[in-house]
């Protein structure tokens, strides 16, 4: 949603009926290339040479570490009201580097703890999406035929609903979601791209000799799919998931901005900004610092994703 494009290089081109073979976008070429290239070690070597991607990785590890260690690092508890009267809405100072919010809570502590919520939410949502998308795509690709056609048409339809509208609809109908509901909702609206990717891979693999051989040796469909095919598509799914995480971080921020995301007083990067959204001029520190946190994290995640993809496609 929030970025106008959802990981463009990983979303396959629309299928055109009657076309001789499938039209493949750059992303799929990349992934096919990656599969052929094979071992992780080579990818890692190429990845290491990409300075931007390495920097992104370092930043991501740092942000994750700080978020996990938030209870140790943060100067205050994220919801502690320090002094209702004397410390409300204080601009940044030495004692409160990111200032305080209208309820006199320390914004630095909230940003640190908010990172946990925002990142965990994004990671869990994308894990959900990857699981559902892989299973759905694998079944469609493996079974093929009419079933595949129907399954993919449904995915097409889902892909064409603007995600933010879908989320707004769900939130409107069921009221404000709990954190786990939010993970589920975000996850269940993020798997369509993954499923198409997986389907394409599985389809391409179906006629490979080792799959045919496995089947000839009497392996059941489920066994072929689970033991032989799925491990081979792990890497493109991982790249797609990594890039998806960045998007979900932005999505969470956007939903919180519209007041339907993570519910206060629980801090997330999105709703710290929401706390100051009506007074951007007066309480700029409530928008700037969590905003910077989001931008830094998402840039880093996307840089790593780009790096992984390039590393997987040696032609670039």
């Amino acid at each position, binding site marked *: 949603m929030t970025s106008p494009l959802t990981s*463009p290089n990983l979303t396959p081109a629309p299928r*055109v009926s009657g076309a001789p073979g499938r039209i493949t976008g750059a992303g799929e070429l990349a992934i096919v290339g990656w599969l052929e290239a094979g071992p992780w070690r080579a990818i890692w070597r190429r990845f290491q040479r990409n300075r931007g991607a390495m920097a992104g990785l370092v930043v991501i590890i740092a942000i994750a570490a700080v978020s996990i260690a938030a209870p140790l690092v943060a100067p205050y508890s994220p919801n502690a009201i320090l002094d209702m009267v004397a410390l409300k809405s204080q601009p940044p100072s030495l004692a409160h580097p990111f200032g305080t919010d209208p309820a006199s809570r320390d914004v630095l502590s909230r940003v640190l703890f908010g990172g946990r919520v925002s990142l965990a939410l994004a990671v869990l949502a994308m894990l959900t999406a990857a699981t559902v998308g892989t299973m759905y795509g694998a079944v469609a690709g493996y079974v093929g035929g009419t079933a595949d056609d129907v399954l993919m048409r449904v995915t097409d339809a889902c892909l064409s609903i603007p995600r933010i509208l879908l989320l707004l609809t769900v939130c409107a109908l069921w009221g404000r979601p709990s954190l786990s509901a939010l993970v589920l909702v975000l996850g269940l609206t993020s798997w369509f791209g993954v499923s198409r990717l997986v389907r394409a891979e599985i389809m391409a693999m179906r006629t490979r000799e080792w799959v045919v051989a496995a089947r000839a040796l009497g392996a059941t469909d489920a066994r072929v799919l689970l033991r032989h095919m799925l491990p081979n598509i792990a890497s493109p799914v991982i790249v797609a998931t990594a890039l998806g995480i960045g998007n979900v971080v932005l999505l969470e921020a956007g939903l919180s901005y519209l007041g339907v995301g993570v519910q206060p007083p629980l801090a997330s990067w999105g709703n710290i900004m929401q706390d100051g959204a009506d007074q951007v001029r007066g309480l700029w520190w409530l928008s700037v610092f969590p905003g910077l946190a989001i931008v830094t994290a998402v840039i880093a995640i996307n840089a790593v994703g780009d790096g992984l993809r390039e590393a997987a496609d040696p032609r670039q």
Partner: protein
Amino acid sequence: MVVAVVTTATFILIHLAPGDPMGGGLDDPRISEAVRTHWRAAYGLDQPLPVQFLRYLTNAARGEFGYSFAYNESVRSLLARALPRTLLLAGTALVLSFAAGIAIALVQVARHGTATDRALGVASLAVYSLPDFWLAQVALLTFAYLVPLFPAGGMVDPVMHPYMGNMAALWDRVRHLVLPALTLATLTAAGIARFQRAALLDVAADDYLRTARAKGVPERSVLMRHALRNAALPVITLFGLALPGFLGGTVFIEKVFSWPGMGSLAVDAVAARDYPVVIACAVVGSMMVAGGSFIADVLYVVADPRLRRAGGGGRP
């Protein structure tokens, strides 16, 4: 197909959700049962579900989505008002963003590997990683408040516009359009540039270009004539794929810039639990996307001679 899936899904969603499918108005417990029955009968909610579903489908096909209690107006007339506004904003931004995005990608590829390429790459990565509403707020703050070059939101001057002459009125519209359209275009252009650069490089690595280069065709000409023409296909693909996210971005831009289009309508409807409007927005949004990908498919066939020969038609 897509529309049928979305319409069915929304119908199921409304009836799964807690509360009255009429939404808003009927929640009020002080409203007597007689009035409630009257309204239910007026909108066919007293009929059995399958009958309701058929009615709902036929109505949706005719563009009738029921009645909005929050606006006290038929949803159809609400949409008739909001849709052109969104199309104006989105259309302008779409043209700008494709022009800018492709131009950036061309520059990057022409200077592949240079500092310019890297700088533009980092810049588009950064913009791509920004939360939409955040960039919009910064733009609003900077160009409407700190340096008041443009109005702070809305489509026209709420007081003076009806009393302006033709030219003045047109200028008033343009002035109001500049900031939201530029913000939306910036956000989208970043994604397009990223995609297009990858696609161009993909093509650039192809053998026939190498041949062209070997024959001594100047680099600029290689890029403009051969590479760009082949990279046009991914642009068309992108057009279809970008639309859902693009409409999502429009929601935030409309909200921040007080643009009374579909996005604002959807967000306000969520806040007011105005189900018929929420659903209608989701359906219309999906229809726009479906329409967009249909156009993309047709263009695809037109642009790719291979497909024309194969006699492939566009996907419905």
